[in-house]
Each structure stands twice: as C-alpha cells, then as structure tokens.
C-alpha cells in the first residue's frame, strides 16, 4: 500500500531524515516511534505531502506521491493531527462535512446524497452524531479529537496518518480511539500509520513498529523485537524494564525512576510481628515484593501489611474476598496494600523463626492445622469445597530476589512442607494414605528487595537451603503444637 524507498528530506535548509526505507501493507496498524527530534513528525509530513522529498521515492498504491493531485491524494490519505486549531465556531456536522471536499466534483461542487450518507454514517460510527449541531468550540478535547477523526474518515481514505493521536486524551479515550482504529484496520482494511509517544500503547496495538533514531531507522520489526530493553535504553537514553502484559501477548515497558534506592537494608524479624487472638500481623517499614496465594493481595505485587486472620471452623461466606476486605478495613488495614490469609487454627500456636546466613536471612511464620489433610496424589477422591486454609506459610527474605527465585522459593517451601507432613505421618482420612498438605494451604514469599541479590532458590542453593530448613522446622513444630492442643 505504501512504500518508502531511500527517502531523505526535511525542512528546506537541513535534511532531518536520511535514507529511510520501509513498506506498509494494507490493513496494517503501523507505529512510528522515536525520541523527540528523531524525525517522526517530519516523516509523517513527507508521507502526507506537506514537506517535499529531497531524494528517494514514496509510492502510495504503486503511484509516486508527487504525481497525485491534491484532491486525489486526499481521497487516498487522510491525516489526524495532534490537535487542530479552530478559530471559528463551525458546527460538528459542518466540520465533518469538509472531509467530503476531495470527493465533490464539478464546478459548483454540489453536495450529493452519497456525501450526506457517508457523513452521517461516519458520525454515527465515531459517536459524534448525537451532538452534530453543537458548536465545535464548545466540545471537550476528547470530543474534538473524535470530530476530526470523523472528518478524516469522511474522506474515505485507504491510509490514515496520525500524529500522536492519543496526546491530550484521557485514558478511556485513548483506549477507545485505538480500539476503534484496530477494528477498522481488520474489518475495513484501512491502513493506519501512527506516531506514538507511549511505547506501551504502541506495543499493545501495533502490528509493526518503526523505531527512528536521529533521522535514521534503528529497526523496523514486530513490537516484541523493537521493544527490547537494551534497544529502548540506548535510543531513549533512559532506564526502563520490559515486562509482559498481564492479559495480552504484548510487550510493555516500565520506567525505572532514578531516585536513590534506600541504602538502608531492613531486616524483617519477630519485632515487626504482632500476634493477637484475632489475627497475626506483620508490618515491615517498607513495602515488600510479594508472590502469594492469599485471599487478598494474591499473585505478584508490592505489599506493606501481612495479615493472617483467625476465623471459626464453620466460617462460611458467599464472597469471602469482600468480607475479608471489609474486615481488614475495619481493623485499620488498607486492603490494596495487604496480603491477607485466613485460618481456623488457634493463633497462639503460631511458629516463627529467623534463620540467618552471612549476608541474608529468612524469617518464617507458620500456622498449621491438619484437620482436613489431603494426599495430593489422590485428591480426586475428595469433593470440592473451600474451607479456610490450615497451613499458612509466610517466608520473608531479607535480600533481593529474581522472579525465578520467587518461583523456586515456592517449590522449595512446598517440598519442605510435604516432607514435614510425611515425617509426622499426617494421614489423609479419606484415602488412608500419608497427606501432603491440606486442601486450602496458602503461601507467601515476600522479599525486601534490598541487600544481597539472590538469583536462585532451588533446594541446594544458599537461599533454598535456608528456606527448606526453616519451613521444615516451623511446619513440624506448628503441626505438633496444634495437634497437642486437639488432644487436650
């Protein structure tokens, strides 16, 4: 659809772009990225015929850009700028109708039925039909942008060029606009070429990305290739980290603030722990990186309060998450900053210990009851039912963990727990075999992310060794303690 061949050019006295070549296929959503001054806007202006091409060729639909007459080009290519100035109070419909200019023929350029139909259709599709008689100067930024999008689409173009279309738009409009464009590319075969400032939006929506650096192409590839940490760091000269989108297979970048990291390393130990009849609370002085399976704050995240709450054996609630959140709130904890678990175990029986190594330490807190112990290998014999967890394991690591180490920590801790059950001969009452855990066990790995970097946590790594030892000891003692209480 669009082919750029060895193009150089820019403003009259200096060439901003050098030797640019790329192709855009029909129906593609093509993103142009680059730091300020890399020539993004210049490139777009050359594509739309505003700036002259010094050397090279731009072919649109196989025809040279210069061979198009102004009206012909407008039927082929429409442009949506960052923001358009409007000095006079045209109505929305008048504004959109101007998009039909290129399609009107003859000396008097009469307004045909087709023109009217296209304008009405486009206004409906973009959702501006409802205020078509309103004065454009009275609209909000997002509404104005939609009106100008409708104007561009009323041109019925095959290529739509956009210059940072989401600038000045709030979050929901950004998404709405890009969702819309994406739909038009796939449903109507519209080719969209857009400049993006926001790398994440570009990574999320574009089929292909072109990264410009100092007027030259750095790379022209799929988002996952273009949005590589090292590449973006080099081109933009800033610290970023890449991580996957939680729902979509798209790369995302996060900025790393260069604020000095707190040099003071905190050590989590029993001084931060409070045990009452109702709950066990641990409140470190800074937020911790967590990976957990709690009722509240599960998954990965950053949390500052850790609550293990005692509930009755017959605790039953339709929406235990909401109930837990309101419980936390009523006790002065902020649910969004809290990892919360539940247990029917008497909290007095909690076991916690600090295990130290030379340059890091692990603090483990376990509450254990084995009332509904289960052999995982035969779990299909059990019926499904959510009962408050009976072995809750908290592992606090005073060190910096990689994602890998987090996952290995969970494996190591689980293995240690199973071994403890095995050694205590805890039986699954349904199957009559040795149990491996209970049906609702929960685990939390939390790391201060300061101090020593701990890359791995497999069973024979320094961290793994410490975790297995700590979890094994604490779990054993906790089970013994609660069993003893039962027998009394």
């Amino acid at each position, binding site marked *: 659809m669009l082919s750029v061949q060895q193009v150089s050019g820019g403003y009259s006295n200096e060439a901003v772009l050098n030797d640019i070549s790329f192709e855009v296929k029909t129906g593609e959503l093509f993103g142009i990225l680059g730091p300020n001054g890399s020539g993004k806007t210049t490139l777009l202006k050359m594509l*739309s*015929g*505003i700036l002259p091409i010094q050397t090279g060729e731009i072919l649109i639909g196989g025809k040279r850009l210069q061979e198009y*007459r*102004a*009206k*012909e*080009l*407008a*039927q082929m*290519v*429409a*442009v949506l*700028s960052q923001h*358009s*100035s*409007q*000095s*006079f*109070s*045209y*109505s929305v419909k*008048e*504004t959109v109708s*101007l*998009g039909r*200019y*290129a399609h*009107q023929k003859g000396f008097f*350029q009469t307004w045909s039925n087709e023109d009217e139909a296209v304008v009405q259709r486009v206004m409906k599709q973009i959702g501006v039909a409802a205020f078509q*008689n309103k004065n454009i*100067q009275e609209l909000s930024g997002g509404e104005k942008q939609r009106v100008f999008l409708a*104007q*561009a689409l009323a*041109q019925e173009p095959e290529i739509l060029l956009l210059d940072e279309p989401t600038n000045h738009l709030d979050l929901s409009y950004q998404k709405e606009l890009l969702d819309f464009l994406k739909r038009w590319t796939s449903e109507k075969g519209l080719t969209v070429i857009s400049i993006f400032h926001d790398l994440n939006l570009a990574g999320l929506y574009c089929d292909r990305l072109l990264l410009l650096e100092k007027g030259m192409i750095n790379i022209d590839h799929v988002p996952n290739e273009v949005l590589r940490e090292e590449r973006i760091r080099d081109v933009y000269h800033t610290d970023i980290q890449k991580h996957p989108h939680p729902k979509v297979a798209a790369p995302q970048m996060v900025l790393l603030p260069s604020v000095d990291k707190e040099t003071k390393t905190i050590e989590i130990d029993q001084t931060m722990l409070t045990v009452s009849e109702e709950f066990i609370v641990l409140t470190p002085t800074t937020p911790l990186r967590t990976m957990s399976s709690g009722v509240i704050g599960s998954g990965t995240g950053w949390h500052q309060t850790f609550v293990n709450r005692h509930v009755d054996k017959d605790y039953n609630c339709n929406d235990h998450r909401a109930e837990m959140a309101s419980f936390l709130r009523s006790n002065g904890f902020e649910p969004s900053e809290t990892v919360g678990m539940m247990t029917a175990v008497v909290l007095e029986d909690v076991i916690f210990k600090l295990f130290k190594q030379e340059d890091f330490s692990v603090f483990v807190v376990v509450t254990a009851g084995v009332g509904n112990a289960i052999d995982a290998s035969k779990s299909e014999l059990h019926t499904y039912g959510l009962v408050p967890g009976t072995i809750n394991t908290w592992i606090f690591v005073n060190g910096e963990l990689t994602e890998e180490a987090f996952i290995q920590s969970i494996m190591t801790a689980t293995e240690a727990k199973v071994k403890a059950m095995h050694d205590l001969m805890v039986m699954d009452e349904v199957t009559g075999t040795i149990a491996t855990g209970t049906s609702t066990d929960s685990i939390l790995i939390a790391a201060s992310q300061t101090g020593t970097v701990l890359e791995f946590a497999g069973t024979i790594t320094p961290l793994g060794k410490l975790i297995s030892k700590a979890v094994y000891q604490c779990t054993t003692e906790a089970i013994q303690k609660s069993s003893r209480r039962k027998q009394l």
Partner: protein
Amino acid sequence: MQRLSIQRFLNNKYLAYILAGIFLFLAILFGISIGTVSVPMVTIMKIIGAKLLWFLSFGDIDPMYSSIVLNIRLPRVILSGLVGASLAIAGAAFQGLLRNPLADPYTLGVSSGASVGAVLTLFFHLSIPIIGSFTLPLLSILFSLFTIFLVLTFASKIERSMRVETIILTGIIFSSFLGAIISLMIALTGDELRQIIGWLLGSVSMRGWEYIKIILPFFIIGSALLIFNAKELNAMSFGEERAQHLGVNVQKRKLIILTAGSILTGAAVAVSGTIGFVGLVIPHLSRLLWGPDHRHLLPLSIITGSGFLILADLISRTIISPTELPIGVITALIGAPVFAIILLQRKRKERSG
C-alpha cells in the same frame, strides 16, 4: 427529531437572506429619501420604477425630485453600497484565510497600501494609455496586493505560526509607515491637497456614476472569485495543513483569495479612500448571527456590508448637517469598539481553555 432540526437549519439560512435583503432595501430607501431635501418614499419608488420600467407610466413626477434621486442620491447610495460590500466580503475572506477574526483590509494595512497607490496616481497625474480611468483602481489594486504579501511575509518571519496578534501588529506597522508616506506626499503637494485628504478619511460624496463604473467590474470579479472559493475558505479556516490534507490545493487557492481580496480592497479604496472597520464588523456580525460557513457568510456579508455603509454614509451627512463628516469617522466609531470586544472575548476564551 433530526429531520426537524435540519429543516430548521434550512429555514434559518433562507431567513438570513430575507432579513439581510430587507435590511439592505430599507437602507437604500432611507439613504435616498433622507437629506437636506426629503424625498417621499413613494416618489423614490416611482422614479426608479419609471427608470427601470420605462414602458409603464407612473404619472407625474416632480423633475426636482427626479434630478436629486437620479443624479445625486442614487449614485451615492449605490457607490457606498458597492464599497461596503467589497470591504465586507474582502474582510470575511481575509479572516477565513488567516484564521483571524481581527483581520480586515484596514487592520492588515491593505487599505493603506491601496491609498498609497491612489495618492500616487493623483499626485503624479498618472494615466496609463488604453485603460484610462481604470489607472486609479488598477494601481490601488497592485499596491494592495503588494502590501498584503509584504505583511504576510513579514508576519511569518516574526513567527511561523502567525498568531492573530502578530498579523495585526504587522498590519499596524505597515499602516503607520504607509500613512506617513501619504502625509509626506500631501505635504509636498499644493492644489491637489483637498482631493488627497478625501482618500485619507474616506468619502463617497460627489462621485457620481463615473465612479460606479470604475468599481463595479472589480467588485463582480473579486466577489465571484471569493464565492467560488468559499469551500476552500472553510477548509483553510482549520489551518493550511489541515486544508491540504482535505485535498485543497493550498498554494493556488491562497493566491486566488489574496488576489481577490486585494482587487476588492484596491477598487474600494480607489473610489472612496480608506474606510476602516467595515470588513471587521460586518463579517463578525454575520458570523455571530448565521454561522461561519463561508458559502453563506460571503454573500451575506455583501448584503449587510452594503446596507451598513449606506446607513453610515447617511449618518455622516445628516448628523451635523449641513457639514458632512467623513464616512470613515462613523465606521471607526462603531468599528473600533467592536474590535476591542472581539479581542477581549478571544483572550477570555484562551484563558478559560
């Protein structure tokens, strides 16, 4: 419901033309009727009717009335109407093109440029062979064209985006400079003084049919050029880049519009001198009443502009009768405050968002 609003919209446009037409008609009638000798409205109708429909008989008409109407008042009214129309449509076009509600031939300095052309013609008694009496408007037009390009080039040198205020400031600089040149010429001239003073302050008195013949062809050409470019003006009032994206051949159209505006201004100045603010007030008022769409704004500006200047001329010659005020005094008295109000509104709008 949608149908209803569209219908109302259409009705609105018809209503606009009817209202403007009535305004012009009344202005013409009053313009002819009122003066040191008052001519009854019925008599005016009869005289003009007899002239246009010579085969009908309207009974006896007093020859004195007939002479006043046909030789003095009617040409004066028509001339002021044409000048008002020319200045108003030129102002509307400049405003649309420059996206600047404060632009008009006077504030842009184009009128002053045209005056220099006119004064030069009178000062040196220039007369180009063949075109003869058209030397005056032609030179005025050339000078106004030259001035507008100079003003725009200079303004874009100051600032690429050519903000409203920059253009106006540039216009003022050029006006002052050109005004000084005119004053210099007046100082150097002897007996032509009175005639030249006329150009400075603007007047349509004692011009006769001769001057109508001078302005009419330029008025028709200029207005036609602009009305045929009404759509392009609509597009360009969203910015030149935007217009190009919409498919407008901006370079060509801009040249046509600027030329047409200069033709209208030059011709108007050649016959009546510099009359300020007509091109500012009328388009602004029309836009306020009937919307900014140039397809209607331009013709409506013609109609209301001519009516406005006819009334302004009427006031200028009756208010302190028997002395006549220059017509430019009246238009400036109305126009300058309007200019101030528009400026104030713009600033308020910018501030509020």
